[in-house]
């Protein structure tokens, strides 16, 4: 099966910042992303969990973005501008994808 080089970017960010992040990604030319729910976590700002929460202040989501390698820098710049002042983690992994025409 023919596969193609790509980058898998995973951005863990506060749920309230999700639309700001994805708007920024779209502006940076990103054509697709997938959002995963996050149950809880822990970091320098302490531990948290979604269970029983009704507000939106305390939750995070994971935005996963698979892109061609040449687009990585644009994406990271866009993501960084949003997460800069906010808590959150951005990580990048090398991957192979099927159907490269989609990215």
């Amino acid at each position, binding site marked *: 099966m023919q596969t193609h080089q790509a980058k898998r970017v995973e951005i863990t960010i506060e749920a309230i910042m999700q639309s700001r992040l994805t708007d920024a990604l779209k502006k940076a030319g990103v054509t697709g992303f997938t959002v995963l729910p996050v149950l809880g976590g822990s970091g320098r*700002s302490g531990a948290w969990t979604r269970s029983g929460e009704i507000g939106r*202040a305390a939750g995070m989501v994971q935005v996963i973005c698979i892109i061609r390698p040449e687009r990585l820098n644009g994406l990271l710049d866009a993501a960084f501008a949003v997460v800069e*002042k906010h808590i959150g983690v951005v990580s990048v992994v090398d991957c192979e994808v099927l159907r490269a025409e989609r990215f």
Partner: protein
Amino acid sequence: MEQILTLAGNNLLSPIILSFALGVAASLARSDLSVPEAAAKALSIYLLFAIGFKGGVSVAAHGIDVKLGLSLLAGVILSAVLPLVAFALLNVITGLSRLDAAAVAAHYGSISIVTFVAATSVLESSGIASEGYMVAVAAAMEAPAILSALWLISRGGDGRRMDSDLWREILLNGSIVLLVGAFLIGWVTGEEGLEEISSFIVAPFKGVLCLFLLDMGLVAGRGLRNGGGVLRPGVLAFGVLMPLIGSAFGLGTGLLLVLSPGGVVLMMVLSASASYIAVPAAMRVALPEANPSIYLTLSLGVTFPFNLTLGIPLYVAVATALTGG
């Protein structure tokens, strides 16, 4: 005095308060009891819909009052002014940074709808009447406090821009839209509409409130366990003092507007209560550097239980004494 104590006693031993206490206790004992997030949100949707609808129906029944407009205006002003008071008090009695103080202050200008709901349920049990449009006042008080807090920060030279997204998010946040929407639906459909759905939104209301408060107790207890450490004595004192100060503002406003005894109580409760849904979310966007442990723990872990247990009976006693209600 005796009346206050009886009322406080009755209040403390109501299923509603005890459910909250059960939640706090379970959390502190690190039980794994938990309400799923989706269920907690569903309960809050139910409560907002029911309380808004009933408020609207009551306005339909009693007709529009000239005071409605005045009360809304008063609510907006209170919500905008109380953060300034809170900010000043925080500067005096706590060592919080400018940013943290502004964030906390925003919460105390805004309101807690569950505290409002708990108060209406105490009023009902005690047979004290109140204006139906106080629900609309509650909605009107959610947002102005946020602007005051941002103004406090920008005054300090820190140039924050409110982006238009944030504006929309604050003014059209889910709880405001649902509360106001249900209020309008209740108003339009009136008693007839209420009859159609009263066995859903009236009869089981208090029971649903118990489960919701169980959940709030679990969340508050978790907050105290994880974030209790940030509450220095000064901050803690603020969490109890500020509702008393706020309620005094509410009392003055209520008397000035010549509201019914129940209306005065609700104005006090709104002024005394602190937001834990709309404002924290706005603060995460606008003031991300402010520490959420402080404002969340203070609002949900200290002020909310204080109002729920001691505050409400006190406000009822004072308001009825002064209005002769």
